[in-house]
């Protein structure tokens, strides 16, 4: 199998102008009388380039669209508009070949494994779907080893309920590795694992990047986790990326008020006296006009935006991502 020459300058995944919406559910009568629920714009115009070999964290609260974005990059959701390029070529309609290159790890390791299948069968499933030639047993053993389950043979005949949560996640990772992918998209890979076990899985993911050159996209709500493993961080709010840059920059010198607010509420010693945003994560079916963050923005609420003469722009104009520093962009009128 010839490996095509990879140009390191070309992003491995390139999403342009991505829009993903979910139609509101229309009850039978509501539909008859013309009242349809507004559709939820889960991903509302995202441009994102994933660089080869990097660990990119997509962070945000629930409802911000990060999971939808990840699933769209996997091909599990179809965008309403926009394109996704994989290695500079558009994502093919027939996704089977694509799925060999881009694989996914799920949030719930217990749910992600069919309880009636042995570990061996779960890992081999990918090989069988794609009818990969060669010694299946060797490949399964190699993948389990790479995922840290050694000796692999010991796990072949076990069922998911006979192993622990951390081990199950490793099985899911092995199931992804067995296809030799180039990109792994991890949706909250450790949030459902015990705290003391998370580090091991994160270490594994970093190790896979270092040893195999994998590109890893991690979706998380936990900025601490992003600090631990990410090279770059993209912060999402209501379907848009509001800040993007190197982890050191975004997490220690944030430019967007939302990122600042998120970092402010990360718990730490010193008590609870810190500004907390009011209100709830907003509803993707009712996206505010102007800057979508302005109703909750502390800069607006405190009057600083008005004092600086930006209030009109904040309420009227949707800011685009602007470059503020080297490789660091944010979508905020005030930040410029």
């Amino acid at each position, binding site marked *: 199998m010839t490996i095509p020459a990879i140009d390191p300058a070309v992003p491995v995944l390139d999403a342009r102008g991505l829009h993903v919406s979910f139609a509101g559910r229309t009850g039978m009568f509501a539909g008859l009388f013309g009242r349809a629920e507004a559709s939820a714009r889960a991903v509302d115009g995202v441009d994102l380039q994933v660089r080869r070999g990097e660990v990119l964290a997509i962070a945000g609260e629930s409802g911000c669209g990060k999971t939808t974005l990840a699933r769209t990059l996997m091909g599990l959701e179809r965008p309403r508009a926009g394109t996704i390029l994989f290695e500079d070529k558009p994502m093919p309609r027939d996704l089977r070949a694509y799925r060999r290159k881009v694989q996914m790890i799920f949030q719930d390791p217990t749910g992600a494994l069919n309880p009636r299948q042995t570990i061996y069968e779960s890992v081999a499933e990918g090989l069988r779907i794609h009818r990969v030639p060669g010694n299946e047993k060797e490949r399964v053993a190699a993948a389990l080893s790479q995922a840290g389950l050694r000796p692999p043979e010991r796990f072949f005949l076990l069922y998911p309920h006979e192993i622990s949560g951390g081990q199950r996640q490793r099985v899911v990772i092995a199931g992804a590795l067995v296809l030799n992918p180039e990109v792994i998209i991890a949706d909250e890979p450790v949030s459902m694992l*015990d705290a003391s076990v998370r580090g091991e899985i994160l*270490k594994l993911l970093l190790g896979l990047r270092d040893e195999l050159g994998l590109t890893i996209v991690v979706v998380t709500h936990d*900025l601490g986790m992003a600090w631990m*493993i990410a090279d770059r961080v993209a912060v999402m709010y209501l379907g848009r990326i509001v800040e993007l840059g190197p982890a050191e920059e975004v*997490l220690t010198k944030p430019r967007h008020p939302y990122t600042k607010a998120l970092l402010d509420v990360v718990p*730490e010693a010193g008590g609870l006296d810190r500004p907390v945003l009011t209100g709830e994560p907003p509803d993707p079916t009712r996206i505010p006009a102007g800057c979508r963050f302005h109703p909750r923005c502390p800069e607006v609420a405190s009057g600083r935006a008005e004092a600086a003469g930006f209030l009109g722009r904040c309420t009227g104009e949707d800011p685009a991502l602007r470059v503020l520093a080297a490789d660091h962009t944010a979508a905020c009128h005030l930040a410029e």
Partner: protein
Amino acid sequence: MSVLSVRDLNVSYTTQAGDVPAVRGVNLDVARGEVLGLAGESGCGKSTVAHAVLRLLPVGARAEGEVLLDGEDVLAMKPGRLRAVRWTEAAIVFQGAMHALNPVRRVGDQVAEAMTIHRQASEREAFRRAQQLVEQVGLPARRARDYPHELSGGQRQRIMIAMALACNPNLIIADEPTTALDVMVQAQVLSLLSGLQQEFGLAMIFITHDLSVLVEACDRIAVMYAGRIVEEGPSDLLFGSPAHPYTKALAAAFPQIGDERFRRAPSGLPGDPPDPAAVPRGCPFHPRCPEAIAACAREDPSLLKLTVDGRRRAACIRVDRLGAPEMVP
């Protein structure tokens, strides 16, 4: 004066495979106005301790020891007294607020229910007080007429807190109150709990696996592992310079953003929290402990004092041998 005093609490569940010890010899004290954090992962027994305080254990669970609530032993109470004590002296904010509310009744009615059960007020008065409580937890009073599905997760959690306050208890036990919530909503709920606790001078036990939350919200923390307390002490000291290897590992899972030491250096423990039915011999943590020595497989250490006044303690023989780590009184 201790609002709650737990002495040598042992809880075991009877299963087909025999008796499973969920809590093995736990001692706790919570004073009026104090917030105690109980940290630990799945299977460590922290939820069981919480339920034991109000004797809310399931059928098939046996509790031994003393649980003194304002001086009275809950485990020895007659059923009538127990029912009177429940909610009026201590209340629980349960885990998973989404499911703890009856979906077909208004939330205000559910908050008022505790008061009418304890005959503290007529139905009308109880509902009015429920509306007051709803306001105190940060929601407009009219939301008391809503049904649970009309509220968001964070709002439902606030209702659970209002319910817990309904009968003016002295002690509130919050069992993973923010686990399923977003960080922003979590911060709001923590703020709320802290505010209420200070305003009413409540004693509080805060149970979660998230050590960083406990550091913020609690005065003292007790870390549990395999049914035992393995370390306890003032929260900032415990988090800042943990003595027990398990506490160190738990603290490492919640990094300080901005601290270079945590950058690209995740560390975790091999293996998993032990199954209560199969706790390892000797120190239950030794199979996973990065600092274990040969003696750890034989000796099961009890909580050893790390400071003269006993405010900091850890159940690790290595700490004792090395001498107490540098302590700030």
